[in-house]
């Protein structure tokens, strides 16, 4: 399930943030925000996606750039909502 979850999130990030011809590779530890793939403004799409997909509500104080900075960090965040 864990690997499946990671794959779902990585697929979404690629589709939502990268152009089709983009050279960047995204894996579970790729820095998303500090790496310039996702900025703080466009992070909202990712937050909305996670909330809809897993029927959760991520409060603003949890939706920090650090919490969204890699797929691994996102997985840790999701654990807090019992999504594993």
């Amino acid at each position, binding site marked *: 399930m864990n690997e499946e979850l990671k794959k779902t999130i990585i697929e979404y990030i690629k589709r939502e*943030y990268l*152009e089709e011809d983009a050279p960047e590779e995204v894996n579970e530890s790729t820095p998303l925000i500090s*790496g*310039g793939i996702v*900025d703080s*403004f*466009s992070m*909202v*799409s990712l937050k*909305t996606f996670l909330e809809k997909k897993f029927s959760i509500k991520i409060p603003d104080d949890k939706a920090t750039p650090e919490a969204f900075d890699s797929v691994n960090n996102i997985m840790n965040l999701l654990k807090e909502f019992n999504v594993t």
Partner: protein
Amino acid sequence: MAYSDKARGYYDSEIKGIQGAGTFKEERFIASPQAANITVEFPAGAPHKEVLNFCANNYLGLSSHPDVVAAAHEGLKERGYGMSSVRFICGTQDIHKELEQKLTGFLGTEDTILFPSCMDANAGVFDVVLDKEDAMIADRLVHASIVDGMRLCKAQLFNYKHSNMEHLEEKLKETQDCRFRLIITDGVFSMDGDIAKLDEICDLADKYDAMILVDDSHASGFMGKTGRGTHEHCGVIGRIDVITTTLGKALGGASGGCVSGRKEIVELCRQRARPYLFSNTVPPVIVAAASKVIDIISNTTDRRDKLEQNTIYFREKMTAAGFDIREGIHPIVPIMLYNAKLAQDMARDLYGEGIYVIGFSFPVVPKGQARIRVQLSAGHEKEHIDRAIAAFTKIGDKYKILGKKKNEIIEMYGL
């Protein structure tokens, strides 16, 4: 003392952090009016230096135009310096209404409301137009003032990949249940000088029953055959519901902005937009001068035509000289260098040659896309542009980047 050592230490460490990150902004002191030729003191305390300015938003060269300055003097004489009031108490003069009507006519909209700045217009308009059952769908590269304005609004936020119409359409499909949708874009994007696909955006808005807001700050006065803006350039005058723009760039360059568009939206801004309600009225001197600017550019397209010719000339010559420039037609011309230090070093050397330009790097532009942004003006004469091209060529040769492609520059200097 309430300003404790702890507080001072914290703020000081924040400043040091900015310096350490290389993003500390140092202001240069200009000891002359804004123009193609300016006198600059940089670094602070250095002797004054005459340089050619290629980094102002003075697109039409009207910032210090004698007729505009004379109109400002006249406004000062006839209507005074300040109004000591917001608009709705005792801050609306006849000339404020006159300028709003002129802007409406020039932009081809239904009505216009002045704001102290376009930043204020963008900070105020979203909260007036939309509520929590609505959606804002913004291009990912919209100006920071729009991002801030959207944060002040309760509507749900969505954004789409820069100028990607398929992605915009996906977001429109995703938000079908919302009461109102507003597509939000800059007309011209300030870092690349690229133009929003307003014709396609209008078609999508029609198809999915969405409204459109365009921030046309880098276009009003010169984009399109008669300078109306990006909506004229794209052939969609009358199809944009809300235009926000500034008087601080092509339209005189002092300050002030506006929301121009559907009359009900403009009226609601007058009733509810907080930066409008709680800021002083735009001073008469600026209103009088901006009004003159609209007269000048309504009577003749000479200045926007000259700007267009200057832009074509500069872009052609710089390409021929071997620079990697972002293609386009806008007077914002990004000279791509990719490496942040190279952009800073070249901008510094160009200043030494008497050409004032600025290097931009992350986080202002995406990582690995550092560049020098050149901005042309109708105030530039051919000899100014030739001097800039000669200086760029000399410095480009020093850094051995002439004729080099993106990957070659990255190979030499890294990202």
